[in-house]
């Protein structure tokens, strides 16, 4: 089975996009960052939620979204960035040590993928996305990225 959970720090708020991009002409945008965990497992759904709470999330700090719906609905772009296969992902490495923590209750974790989700906010423009991808936090040497469907676009389609 397959569990997607997005974890959002309740105490963080969107910041100026200039903090993470290197093109000074792109101003007036902000971004927010969350983490998305994709877990392949066997066992009860309640157990995987218990696992997420035990290992990844913090009761006080984090909000969790299990239904796959992105947390922010007003972003112009949502881009998931992950480390390429073969690049050491230390969070995954250490989290995986606990894959058997609930095994006596019947939970088997088979695979885990962790990505950083970036939400971009502001006036819609293709260029922002281009700049974010080309001169932002992504380095194609170690990262791969995928665009999670743009909310704005979806709305237009719906019309």
């Amino acid at each position, binding site marked *: 089975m397959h569990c997607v959970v997005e974890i959002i*720090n309740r*105490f*963080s708020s969107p*910041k100026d996009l200039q903090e993470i991009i290197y093109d000074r002409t792109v101003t007036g945008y902000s971004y927010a960052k969350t983490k998305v965990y994709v877990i392949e497992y066997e066992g009860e759904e309640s157990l995987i939620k218990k696992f997420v709470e*035990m*290992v*990844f999330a*913090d*009761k*006080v*700090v984090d909000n969790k979204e299990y239904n796959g719906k992105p947390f922010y609905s007003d972003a112009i772009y949502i881009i998931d960035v992950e480390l390429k296969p073969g690049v050491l992902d*230390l*969070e995954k*490495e*250490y*989290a995986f*040590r*606990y894959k058997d*923590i609930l095994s006596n209750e019947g939970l088997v974790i088979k695979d885990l993928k962790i990505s950083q989700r970036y939400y971009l906010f502001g006036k819609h423009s293709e260029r922002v996305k281009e700049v974010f991808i080309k001169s932002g936090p992504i380095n194609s040497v170690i990262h791969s990225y995928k665009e999670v469907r743009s909310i704005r676009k979806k709305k237009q389609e719906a019309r």
Partner: protein
Amino acid sequence: MEERVRSLLLKFPGTNCDSETDRALRTAGFDNDIIPINLLNRDMIFEYSMVVIPGGFSYGDYIRAGRLAQLELGLKIGDALFEFKEKGGLILGICNGFQILLQLALLPQASLTTNISGRFICKWVKLKIINRKTPFLYLLPWKFELPVAHIEGRFVTSENKANEYVDSGLASLVYEENINGSECGIAGLNDETGRVFGLMPHPERFLFYDDYYNIDKSSNERYGSGYIFFRSVYEYLKVGGKM
């Protein structure tokens, strides 16, 4: 023979303040043992008067600070730490240790998250004591300085409990200048018994006056406020738990 006051300093992979904390405990009078987590067992802790979890990055703190250490400690000695506390033992968590104690729920509900600046902060800070009636603070002056060095040191609570903690005196230590966005500037927190205490600043790094950032060479001071901190606990335990 004089009775020794024994402390146990717990070391995880990634703990990195063990030797200076050991030095601080010994300088203050403790008979301290550094115990790597792989050698720790449940019964062992009851031979000591205090358990100390020092600073560092246990297991790298990659998921969140203290999480894996909490899981590991929970699996290993379960509720022994709670029993130890109930029996009158002291538990101290410094920096990463504070993060671990909160995760273990040995302290009132709260958490430490990423600093509001998003950055690591290595800085000397001015601190203010709110409640001096804890074994860890009672010999210190109301105001003193210590260095901090953390990226996840922003004290947060759900439902504004921070105010409650300040009012009740559980939040016994606060920053004079809020460096990391902590609610009510909380820098240190103890439980209802006062016997469990966690703080973000590093008392072990201001053991000697020479450690200060703005030394007055004409001063005759030998020790720093970190020494008084450890000496407080030592004196408290020495006389069998009295302030």
